[in-house]
């Protein structure tokens, strides 16, 4: 019952935003170009949220995604421009960017696992490293407007929908498969849910920790390449703000801080929510500084709600006086 109310509330908020827009600014919100820009940003956020859901299962947020985006875009664009902008250079450049993203993630995952570091700190530090690297690599903006396939990746359309939306859909299918249908995904849930029990069952932690961050890094690099293709240039600041937005998307989608809770569907929901929210705020001409504040407040609120409903769903008192979740594990 509680669960149903909660699910309903989640959908309701989205519907409420759509109604709010319909009432206040129908003309500027419900246009083809605005709706497709929402879809575009939902696609970018969604790809990264699908990626970040994995580290959120196992150890915590991956805040390096904004840096990995910049580096991904840089690697692809640099390779393409230095190889004459051919289609084959685009394919290689894209693969190199994905590889770079995965490597970055793998390094973080290894550091987090082997040195037992908090993922929050490691990924935040890596974000700085990556921003630095992108700035050094992109002293001047690198414009890239060929090959055609590259431009299409950013701005093309198929059956009326932007190409990134299709990339997003493919990525969602891949993530659902990995997270919910494979042994690797199951191990991620187990490792996050109970580390000691997993070790005693012979599950090795290192591959899980390394792979989840590699996947997140790869997703961020892919988003970075799409972003570069949309702008037809690579810039070191391309990913600014995406870290918190993606984290918000994941948290809204029910991702935990390394406790083995989360789902690919949640990431998709969160991405759509955040893209819609940002767009609504822009159309309602809320200044961007306020938008950032709202994102911050929402991260806290979403996590509070998540905990509240978790307590309710497991049947506990939501202690009225102390306003905290009581721990029931003391009883057998």
């Amino acid at each position, binding site marked *: 019952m509680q669960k149903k109310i909660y699910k309903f509330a989640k959908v309701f908020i989205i519907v409420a935003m759509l109604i709010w827009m319909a009432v206040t600014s129908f003309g500027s919100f419900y246009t083809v170009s605005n709706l497709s820009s929402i879809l575009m940003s939902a696609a970018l956020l969604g790809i990264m949220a699908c990626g970040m859901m994995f580290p959120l299962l196992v150890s915590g947020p991956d805040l390096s995604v904004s840096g990995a985006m910049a580096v991904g875009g840089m690697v692809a664009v640099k390779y393409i421009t230095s190889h004459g902008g051919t289609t084959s250079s685009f394919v290689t450049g894209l693969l190199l960017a994905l590889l770079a993203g995965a490597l970055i993630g793998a390094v973080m995952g290894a550091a987090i696992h082997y040195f037992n570091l908090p993922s929050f700190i490691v990924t935040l530090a890596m974000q700085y490293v990556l921003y630095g690297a992108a700035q050094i690599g992109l002293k001047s903006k690198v414009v890239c407007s060929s090959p055609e396939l590259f431009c299409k990746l950013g701005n093309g359309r198929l059956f009326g929908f932007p190409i990134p939306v299709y990339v997003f859909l493919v990525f969602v299918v891949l993530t659902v498969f990995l997270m919910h249908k494979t042994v690797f995904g199951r191990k991620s849930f*187990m490792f996050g849910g109970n580390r000691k029990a997993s070790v*005693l069952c012979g599950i090795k932690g290192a591959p899980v920790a390394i792979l989840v961050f590699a996947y997140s890094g790869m997703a961020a690099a892919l988003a970075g390449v799409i972003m570069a293709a949309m702008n037809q240039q690579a810039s070191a600041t391309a990913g600014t703000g995406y870290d918190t937005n993606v984290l918000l998307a994941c948290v809204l989608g029910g991702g935990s801080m390394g406790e083995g809770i989360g789902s690919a569907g949640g990431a998709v929901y969160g991405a759509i929510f955040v893209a819609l929210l940002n767009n609504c705020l822009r159309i309602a001409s809320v200044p961007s500084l306020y938008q950032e504040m709202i994102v911050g407040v929402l991260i806290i609120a979403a996590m509070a709600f998540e905990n509240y409903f978790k307590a309710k769903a497991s049947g506990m*008192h939501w202690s009225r006086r102390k306003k905290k979740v*009581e721990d*029931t594990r003391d*009883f*057998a």
Partner: protein
Amino acid sequence: MAENKEILLRCSKIVKEFSGNRVLDQVDFDIRKGEVHSLCGENGAGKSTLIKIISGIYPKDDGVIYINGNPVDIHSRQDSTANGIAVVYQELSVMTTLTVAENIMAGKELTKFGFLQKKQMNRRVQDLIDKYDLGLKATQRVAELSTAGRQVVEILKALITDASLIIMDEPTASLSYKESEALFKIIRSLRDNGVSILYISHRLDEVYMLSDRITVLRDGKLVGVFDKEAEGGIKPDEVIQAMVGKSLSTERQKELTPGSGKVVLDVRHLSHRGYFNDISLQVHEGEILGIGGLVGAGRTELLRSIFGVDPVTAGEVTYLDQPISRSIRQNIKSGIGFISEDRRSEGFVPQLSVEQNAEMINFGAVSSFGVLSKAKERARAKKMIEEVNLHPADPKYKVANFSGGNQQKIVVGKWLIHNCKLLLIDEPTVGVDVGAKSEIYKIIEDMAANGAAVIIRQ
């Protein structure tokens, strides 16, 4: 006691449902002043749920709780403490670096001008210890105490709040025989001082020995109250019959033939410095080897070192004529199983379902090329559920939502359906009810009969 029949706490028509499942159905229940009252029932009967309601963790759906005849609202642990109800948790929450007195007075420190009144606090705690004859020193560090001693600290924490009802949910589960005896002495002394005890345990001999009255729950319903003072006293057969709903045949366990097969595990002069020293033993095919000893004698650590969880400082182990691997994963692959004693922190992944927990040790059996097969997962879980008689028998149910004893069945069950050649078991039946206990042992015996070697710590 007999002359004091005043009722301290009364529950009237308590109802509790979890997503439509009625876990407590109109339960009436009362505790008198200064009595030891036991709550009995099979795994999942609703015992823990009832005390969670009394102690303010779960809200009840219906019913009234009276204390000293007055209806009370209990919405949080603070409420229950304020009403004189205290709970001794199994998961002990003591701070080991502090002294006994500091632990007990934590949050209730006596101060004068902002300075701690250490002497007064120590005296007050010592007085309390002496009053109930608990055999501790207020100035002792908790780090020096055994599990049993720490449990006494928890009891003291309850006493300092002037609790008139102390609830204990399976307190002897991790105590040795001698420590349990000491605890019983404390319980009796508390009772003689007018404190009521609500006692839950699956060790029925303890229950018969301690209780003034026994309330039995079955499937969330009250099925009987047994009174020592009543004519003929408490008859164990009647209690068991009430618990399981039928008379349990007291079948003798079949005679086991000693294993005569080849040596499966050969441990020679094994040591882990600081835990155990120079252990040698052999287990053969079809043999069940019990390891005895006191709590803290290093039995758990021995099993952990053999399995590769903990290190070894000297000696060697051979498994099927090969040196044993130090990798847990490798050991599981070659047919060794290990059941940890600490189910809550090492046994299962609470938010995953039964079927997902069942497959943890052998993904190979439920997947091909890394892709999981739903049908195989389901089949494996079904097999396990049948073997251990899990309740509720739903493979998709989250493990967190099972009762303590049923969680234990899941922890043990996933190894029992695995084809182990050597099974290392550390206390397999903590918190498991009488019926399930003998079933688990029967499965273990069957495994041995089929040629597996078993080492079991009791």
